[in-house]
């Protein structure tokens, strides 16, 4: 394996390669790296977030708004963990899952960072487990119940005409498990003889499934206990089923029926089992995970291989070692299948005009932070990292999508584009526009020049990058570019980009240390805004 191949792999599998990570991968090889990744302890968020709470645990003011000192704790923990944690693949997997099974702090969850941290931990702890278990834990999470409005959802009342809230029933199927139409194992829709697709369910199924998600409320108090009276752990422990509020009707959906008077916990288990059993889950979830890690428009064959790993529950690495438990839905098998597939690893893919993806803006930033070995990823003093959703910043913020449909849709085909004309799905193009084209360079420049605004300028600064290695080379643009190409673009930097950067560098002084630092930083921004960086191949 070459340094370029190692850098490329880590660009796909982590929050960004750096020199040490590349060396480590080169010394142990891909397979041992993967196995080690599965065994690294998970870096979780809840304890960190709770440690930041006031001693009495009271985290809200008289208006029910989160106190300023706690509101960003979960977000801060994300940045710190993504950039510094050792369990990089697990963290990437959790982040990828957060874009499929979406909850967002752009909601009432934003008032309770411990609720979000609990949710983040479900995805993190479950990242290498079984997808069925993930669905179970997500369903019982306070965060999802608040976000998709089934917290304290009640059975129907024929007197008032009240019916169960349908939100979770719909999105659980449409977004988290099976999608809308029947899929072949390679992710392409099944078509009828007349060319139409096969819809999986109609509104009657939704109404039937909605009955299942009734009766859940916070643990440790009455069903309708006012929020300020809840024991504080209620926000970060699994919900409890209150059967007196759970629907006793038969619950019919997706060709199955849960008998009348089945209890709440049992109904949920049966419902999740039935949905999880649908053959769509492997291709539906698998294709999206490929999009998060490797390429926006995987070939159907690639999708088929990944969904086969989902269904088998294990995957054979090249040496013959098998990873995964053998149980359908094993996420170790899935991520191994994604990263070790020929389509992900081969040099031929780099030359394939339809392969690759725009890097997510969040991942461009974390890559910068890791590649230039910032002194600390403690985000508590970083105003610009509190909400990077604005098009003037990164255009996305982790766990803060604008709605349950994530930042972009997996099936997005961009109009008026060449990827669109070729029928390629390109989700990240959905957040690319005339504003983001400007916002991202401005954002990365601010950090590259160490000018990010601080809440308290008196505190020792975090996010201070180390450009020493690059400054040392900066008197020689060619050498500097070789270094940056290795670090950032795994050898794909084009001659014309190099020429442009060289021209600019030659117009900058190279006499003092300050000059050399400036050259190094300008060059890094130019590389990180070049098409060959923006598009990960």
């Amino acid at each position: 394996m070459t340094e370029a191949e190692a850098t490329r792999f880590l660009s796909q599998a982590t929050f960004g390669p750096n020199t040490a990570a590349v060396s480590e991968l080169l010394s142990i090889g891909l397979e041992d790296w993967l196995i080690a990744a599965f065994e690294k302890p998970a870096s979780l968020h809840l304890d960190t977030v709770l440690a930041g709470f006031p001693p009495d645990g009271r985290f809200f003011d008289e208006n029910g708004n989160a106190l300023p000192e706690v509101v960003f704790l979960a977000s801060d923990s994300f940045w710190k963990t993504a950039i510094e944690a050792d369990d990089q693949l697990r963290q990437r997997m959790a982040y990828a899952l957060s874009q499929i099974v979406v909850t967002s702090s752009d909601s009432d969850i934003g008032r309770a960072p411990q609720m979000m941290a609990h949710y983040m931990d479900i995805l993190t702890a479950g990242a290498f487990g079984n997808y069925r278990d993930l669905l179970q834990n997500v369903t019982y999470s306070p965060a999802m119940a608040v976000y998709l409005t089934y917290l304290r959802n009640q059975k129907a009342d024929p007197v008032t005409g009240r019916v169960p809230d349908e939100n979770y029933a719909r999105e659980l199927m449409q977004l988290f498990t099976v999608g809308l139409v029947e899929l072949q194992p390679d992710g392409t829709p099944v078509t009828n003889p007349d060319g139409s697709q096969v819809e999986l369910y109609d509104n009657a199924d939704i109404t039937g499934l909605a009955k299942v998600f009734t009766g859940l409320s916070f643990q440790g108090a009455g069903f309708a206990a006012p929020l300020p009276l809840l024991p504080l752990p209620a926000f970060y422990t699994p919900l409890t089923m209150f059967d007196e509020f759970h629907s006793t009707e038969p619950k019919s959906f997706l060709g199955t029926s849960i008998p009348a008077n089945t209890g709440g916990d049992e109904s949920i288990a049966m419902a999740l089992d039935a949905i999880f059993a649908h053959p769509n889950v492997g291709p539906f979830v698998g294709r999206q995970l490929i999009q998060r890690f490797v390429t926006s428009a995987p070939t159907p064959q690639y999708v088929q291989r990944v969904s086969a790993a989902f269904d088998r529950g294990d995957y054979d690495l090249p040496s013959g070692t098998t990873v995964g438990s053998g149980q359908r839905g094993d996420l170790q098998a899935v991520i191994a299948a994604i990263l070790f597939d020929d389509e992900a690893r081969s040099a031929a893919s780099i030359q394939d005009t339809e392969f690759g993806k725009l890097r997510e803006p969040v991942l461009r930033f974390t890559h910068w932070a890791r590649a230039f070995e910032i002194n600390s990823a403690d985000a508590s003093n970083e105003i610009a990292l509190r909400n990077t959703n604005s098009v003037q910043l990164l255009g996305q913020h982790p766990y803060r999508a604008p709605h349950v449909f994530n930042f972009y849709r997996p099936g997005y085909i961009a109009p008026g584009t060449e990827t669109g004309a070729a029928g390629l799905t390109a989700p990240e193009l959905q957040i690319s526009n005339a504003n983001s084209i400007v916002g991202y360079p401005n954002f990365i420049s601010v950090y590259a020049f160490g000018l990010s605004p601080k809440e308290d300028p008196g505190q020792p600064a975090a996010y201070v990058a180390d450009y020493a290695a690059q400054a040392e080379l900066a008197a020689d643009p060619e050498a500097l570019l070789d270094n940056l190409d290795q670090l950032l673009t795994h050898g794909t930097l084009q001659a014309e980009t190099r020429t442009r950067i060289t021209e600019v560098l030659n117009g900058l002084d190279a006499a003092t240390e300050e000059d050399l630092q400036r050259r190094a930083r300008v060059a890094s921004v130019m590389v990180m805004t070049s098409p060959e960086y923006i598009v990960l191949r």
Partner: protein
Amino acid sequence: MQSRRNFLKSSLALPMMASSGSMLSALAGFNAQAADTSSYKALVCVFLFGGMDCHDTILPYDQSSYNDYAQIRASLLASYAEQPGGSTRSRSALLALDPSSASFGSRQFGLPPQLSGLHQLFEQGNAAIVGNVGPLSEPTDSAGFGSNSAELPARLFSHNDQQSTWMSFAPEGSSLGWGGRFGDAAAQSNANAGAVFSQIALAGNSVFLNGDLVSPYRIGVDGVPSIRLIELAGDTLGPLLRDHFASAGSNRDNLFERDFINLSQVSLDANDTLDRALQEGSLVSTPFPDSELGAQLRTVAQTIAVRETLGVSRQVFFVALHGFDTHSAQAISLPALQQDLGDSMAAFFTATQELSIANRVTTFTAADFGRTLTVNGDGTDHGWGGHHFVVGGAVNGGDIYGDIPVSQLGHDQDAGNGRLIPQVSVEQFAAPLGSWFGLTQSELDAALPGLANFPAGPLNFI
């Protein structure tokens, strides 16, 4: 004319899409006397993401209907009564509507007080209400819907698919919106020298503005952004940096790279042009609410103010308000959104008067869907047909078009739980707007392919 059309295509630097076959064949029959694009006109789509509850927007006002409503919506009205300041949905709080010609027998309607801005426009004759609009494949009712005998739009009640269907007559994944098709007709008549500014998006990347010839240009509410590094680099290095960010002259093979490069080039050029135009133009002085919608409509007004510098005579704008998916806490969320909606649309109308083009700008609301009449406690679930507003000096306002079904369950347009089966299709809603915009009948038929399924005569709200 011929060379100018080619100039437009090359300045957009976008390839013709292979999938636009049907539009291309329409172009083959192009008649130089097509869309009337003399003088200026603009359409502004205000999309209410999440689906605004139609039943909590146009409420029954006559006592008998209100009583029916209050019974079905008891728990929701109870949560309104708990709000500080008391209920804004009690009958006495509503703003009565007095339509000039529409007749609903003894039934009357009112708006919540938060929509006072729209109420005033309605009374002045500058706003119309179009009742029970939504996606349809053919006219139908509860019998057709319930027996599965009617042809229906795909994926009803699914947010993203209904948003897409409203905008483009097809579920998520479609590529051409009817706002874009209107823009295409205008482009074919050489409406716009500054073609990149014909479709302006203030929000999101939605399909509504996408056409074959025209593409949305995204602008923000905080002025035109510029790459700071270019500005800081000075006179010699600045242009070099600009060439870098625009990947000037680059020719790559990878399609994703090519698209990124094209987007960069088009965006940076358009940003520069718009920025210069705004610097040179005069400011719109009408005050706008400092709100999500207010900021967008203020920016639209400011952009319209510099239309001559931008070289446009036909524009379609897309703005959005989010948060209408009120499955719970509706009494808390919806009023504030409606306040923003009403106040911002009123301010925008005033701004068009300031610019002396009030009858040249037409604004209309749209949404994923309306909602259920039944409630799930303190909220409502996904519906279908909804009631919408059309505002502008050219609007035949002060009247209600389409229909407002009764506040009961089980009527002929009830799809269950009071979800309304639309009586006005999106095509029927869009056609008068397109006609006003300057499209000929044949251009309308091409832009709104389903229109032929709705033989009822055009609504004359504009």
